[in-house]
């Protein structure tokens, strides 16, 4: 009888260990998957750029600075690899695209062209997807980081080779800027 109780206790402890370990691994894989989703959506957005630039050029070729900003942002985005770099390139791209769409407002012919309209719709859905992918990634990172830092999962973090991950923070120049107040 005593042996059975002892075995049951040991089995329970082992089960507990396994559950903690697996939880950490699952959270870590969740962050990896969320990161992959961000990369997929950023790639999609990059793929839209050449077409967009060509279309805008057809109507507004002299808006060179705006077009160049988009092209250079795209080039930067393709070389980024760490979370911080990708986020920075992403922020630059968002900014450049916003500028390009603002320029397009001034060209009624461009705005009315069917090619531009479908590109605009695709761009806005991709922009939303990028934003939601970021949000989902950060939620996953938050769960993982909480687990890595709290008892009892923190005791297993070393064994599972899981550590705190980096949040995806986009530098948005526009939202950082303090509003101009004139008296």
């Amino acid at each position, binding site marked *: 009888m005593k042996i059975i109780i002892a075995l049951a206790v040991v089995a329970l402890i082992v089960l507990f260990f396994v559950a903690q370990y697996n939880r950490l691994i699952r959270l870590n894989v969740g962050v990896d998957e969320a990161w992959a989703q961000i990369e997929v959506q950023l790639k999609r957005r990059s793929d839209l750029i050449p077409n967009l630039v060509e279309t805008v050029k057809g109507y507004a070729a002299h808006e060179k600075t705006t077009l160049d900003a988009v092209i250079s942002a795209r080039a930067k985005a393709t070389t980024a690899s760490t979370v911080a770099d990708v986020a920075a390139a992403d922020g630059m791209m968002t900014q450049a695209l916003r500028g390009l769409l603002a320029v397009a407002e001034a060209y009624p012919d461009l705005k009315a062209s069917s090619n531009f309209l479908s590109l605009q719709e695709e761009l806005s859905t991709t922009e*939303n997807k990028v934003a939601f992918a970021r949000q989902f990634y950060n939620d996953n990172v938050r769960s993982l980081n909480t687990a890595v830092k709290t008892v009892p999962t923190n005791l297993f973090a070393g064994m599972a080779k899981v550590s705190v991950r980096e949040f995806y923070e986009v530098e948005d120049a526009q939202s950082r800027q303090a509003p101009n107040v004139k008296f």
Partner: protein
Amino acid sequence: MQAANRRKTFGLLAGMGLLTGLVVYAALTYFGSSTVGIVPIAVGIALIGVWGSYYGSDKLVITMTGARQIQENDNPKLFGLIQEVCIASGLPVPKVAIVDDPAPNAFATGRNQDHALIAFTTGILDVMDRDELQGVIAHEMSHVANRDTLVSAVAATTAGAIAILSDILTRMMWFGGGRRERDSNSNPLAIALSLLILILAPIAAVLLKSAISRKRESLADATAVAFTRNPAGLRSALEVLAKDSTVVQQRSTSVAHIWIESPLDGTSVSKLFSTHPPIQERIAALRAMESLS
């Protein structure tokens, strides 16, 4: 908000279980122990009926509502919006269907997230802008995420079993002349109580079922905001639905609970039996979330 709604659903489902227990108790005191055999029969009949429709819910509802399934090429804009919400929620992209109906409405069904189906009327696609439609999609995907088809199947099974059980038992009273068992309880108070339970239980079961459905609707609104972080979109979508007086053609009560806006005329059905919370209350709740963010 979400946690409170979940707790309440759990409480209501527990209430359903308690009600079933009461009915079984009433049957035993009134008819004696020989009626025990009826219980598994009633539960069995309810199980077969409800779980058949639960398992094949995605296909069944398509035929019942006259929806037709579409592919990404048929409406890339709608699919783009759905993919957005799927990325926000981490759910797989569901099957999508269109119901040819000018009344704006939408629903979600399917036994799990891999067999999910969301459907929209042609009306809702016409009247709603991007943000509103995104809110509606997030609400429907929340039903998928919260496994509401399962919750309502459980509620329907217990309500069905209780209805069948008390139906059989009241018939036995009429035809069998009632109490023939020697071992049945002879306390008159217990017998009167049992009769009352048997008569009132089916009504109570329907009330509980409606209450569960209302809680799941509020929960889906809250979960939708957690997905999109944009209460304004869903709020303005609900306002469009509230202003609109047209109602989905097909008015079968059996599928009423799955639409985002109840297709049954709200004024004729009393609040307790309603499958949806009043739309103005839902709008007010979303407004409160807007002021928080």
